[in-house]
């Protein structure tokens, strides 16, 4: 899901960087001081998740966890993902520094959308919460795939073919992500329900 350097055209890089910067600013503004630790924790999880390697077909893919990050954070997912991506680029050469903005947008925007759509279900019944978590993880990756297709379409000619290929390629990862997100949410519901959105922060121990 990380776009490498030298793939995208200049205007796409600049537009991506501008939008990502705006999202990060909003995220930092909405970052409640009590939630800094949580944000850092999820940034760490995001940073490490990219190393979890899932062999699928000819390509090798890795977890993204942007759905989980978004679901638990909302807008602060932007700064969390930026930090994770910078460190991945520097330490693992995933993506790159010039594509940082675009990559941030690709992963953080679906995360925030997932938060808006699904976070309200997390405190309802167990089945509904797990289904919402699965949907959030699934959709976050799939939307990311759509954004990748869109970004590539400005550089490559056959937009439709590229977009379809990218989305198809992301489908299995999306399923894996959905399952992982549901597992995490199920675990948190049992162990630390205060971490899930939809509860007043006062209840967080």
């Amino acid at each position, binding site marked *: 899901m990380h776009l490498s350097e030298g793939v995208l055209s200049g205007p796409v890089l600049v537009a991506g960087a501008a939008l990502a910067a705006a999202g990060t600013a909003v995220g930092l503004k909405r970052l409640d001081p009590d939630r800094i630790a949580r944000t850092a924790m999820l940034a760490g999880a995001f940073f490490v998740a990219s190393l979890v390697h899932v062999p699928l077909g000819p390509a090798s893919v890795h977890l993204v966890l942007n759905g989980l990050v978004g679901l638990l954070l909302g807008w602060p997912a932007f700064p969390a993902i930026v930090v994770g991506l910078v460190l991945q680029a520097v330490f693992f050469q995933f993506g790159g520094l010039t594509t940082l903005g675009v990559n941030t947008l690709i992963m953080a925007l679906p995360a925030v959308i997932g938060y808006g759509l699904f976070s309200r279900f997390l405190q309802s019944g167990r089945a509904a919460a797990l289904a919402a978590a699965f949907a959030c993880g699934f959709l976050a990756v799939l939307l990311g795939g759509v954004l990748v297709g869109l970004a590539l379409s400005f550089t490559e000619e056959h937009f439709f073919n590229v977009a379809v290929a990218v989305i198809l390629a992301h489908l299995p990862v999306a399923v894996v992500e959905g399952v992982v997100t549901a597992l995490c949410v199920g675990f948190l519901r049992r162990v*630390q329900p205060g971490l899930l959105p939809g509860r007043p922060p006062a209840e967080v121990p």
Partner: protein
Amino acid sequence: MKPASFLCALIAAAAFLVFPAGAFAHRVTLFAWVEGDTVHTESKYPDGTRVREGLIRVLDREGRELLQGKTNERGEFSFPIPRREDLRIVLEAGMGHRADWPLTREELGGAGPPPSSPAPAQAPATAPAAFSTAELEQALEKALDRKLAPVVKLLSELHEPRLRIADIVGGLGWIIGLAGLAAWMKQRR
């Protein structure tokens, strides 16, 4: 500290899943070398999986495409040298995975005289037992190519960056540091 233990569990799970395979994904590497009149390329994902059906494009210095082809089952693609000048080989493994490898004129043998054309003309003139310079050069090059092949292979393996635990720990340290910085700044306000 239950959240922290959750994170630890995640990291442990990640480490457990990753390290036995020594694998990490999402970056492709391309390695190319010259053997006689042929350029060989090898494309891999960092965990050693070969890139199948990857598109290899060969560009000249101005970025014009000279030829292209697909990698085979073992991630290899070979082609005859199209022109003895600076070339750039680009691998596009789809979905934004891309790597490139420059080949200089010297590597392609462009600096020396054209290797084969004078040889047949000169050969009858010299004594039958002696080799002409051109022939000698060719034979040497062939032998060297053959002898150096394992070294080249080894280099191609060394060329790949490996995942190091120090990097992971370092990255997590950065995140903790940034969180501390953010908390401090929010508190001052």
